[in-house]
């Protein structure tokens, strides 16, 4: 379990690339992307999530499980 401000809980990649496989993220919290946030300023948030469970995460704004975003959310 992890809680941070902008970004994510356990896994965060400000601009990628990020690769997650056979993982689990549970009960994390963040403003954007409760478990996983990828992006910020690039046009293409480079990341892969494969065979991963994202459960009971929370976001103070957008994307409780995951937020891929090219620019900061308005």
């Amino acid at each position, binding site marked *: 379990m992890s809680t941070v401000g902008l970004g994510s809980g356990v896994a965060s990649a400000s601009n990628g690339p990020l690769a997650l496989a056979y993982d689990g993220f549970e009960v994390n919290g963040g403003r954007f992307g409760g478990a996983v946030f990828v992006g910020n300023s690039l046009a*293409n948030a480079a990341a892969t999530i494969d065979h991963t469970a*994202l*459960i009971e995460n*929370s976001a103070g*704004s*957008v*994307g*409780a499980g*995951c*937020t891929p975003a090219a620019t900061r959310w308005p």
Partner: protein
Amino acid sequence: MTVTDSSFSLNSGLVAGGGIGQFNTPLSILQTSMTSNTAPMAGGLSISAGPCPAHGGYVLVRDTTIGGNTATGGQGGRVDNNALSEFINVTIKDNTGGVYNSGAGPVMFAANTVLDNPGRLNGDGDGTLPQYHGGNFSDDSSCSLKSNGDADRAGLDPKLRPLSMDPTDYTWYYLPLTVSLLIDTAFATRSPRDQRGAADPQQMRHWRGGVWLAVPATLGGVHPALRSTAPLPNLKEV
């Protein structure tokens, strides 16, 4: 970003995108489930681009289940779309509505997608209609389905089993009953395998939605409906 064979469950957002909240970046969601997530808008999936829908990345959702998600606030939403997106073989069921579509121009395309959200609008938004490429199914007429093989009628029942979990990759899905109207009625745009990775028994056609019927090995074959070589029925005429 690509999400494959993954499960988003019981997540909650305070603004939008209980499961996934995308903004202005290409995204592919394949063989994945978003279930029982919550947010004021877009309980399951939020797709957005700015300053207009064409400025964001292309979003593909394929062989995926979006079920039992809740939008707790004003703009109802299970899938909120304001970007260029395509849904193929997707089941959107038992959410607090189907798709909330908005933005200038045709921003969403759908094929072989099942919308079954009883008591809620399957098609909602600012009046911008998705483009339908055939084989879609809705249990109300709010989507204005008009393509070949589309079926939309109040009270139409896709006859899906309760939500089940795939023990191999932990994604959730609704399996069709053997009497389901979805069987053997998928249209031209189809997937070679379903959400669980099961291959199309005929390699020719299969059903709509994220998952097709499991065939017990003891039967040594496939459901009779799958053996049909008859032309695809247009359920609007049934």
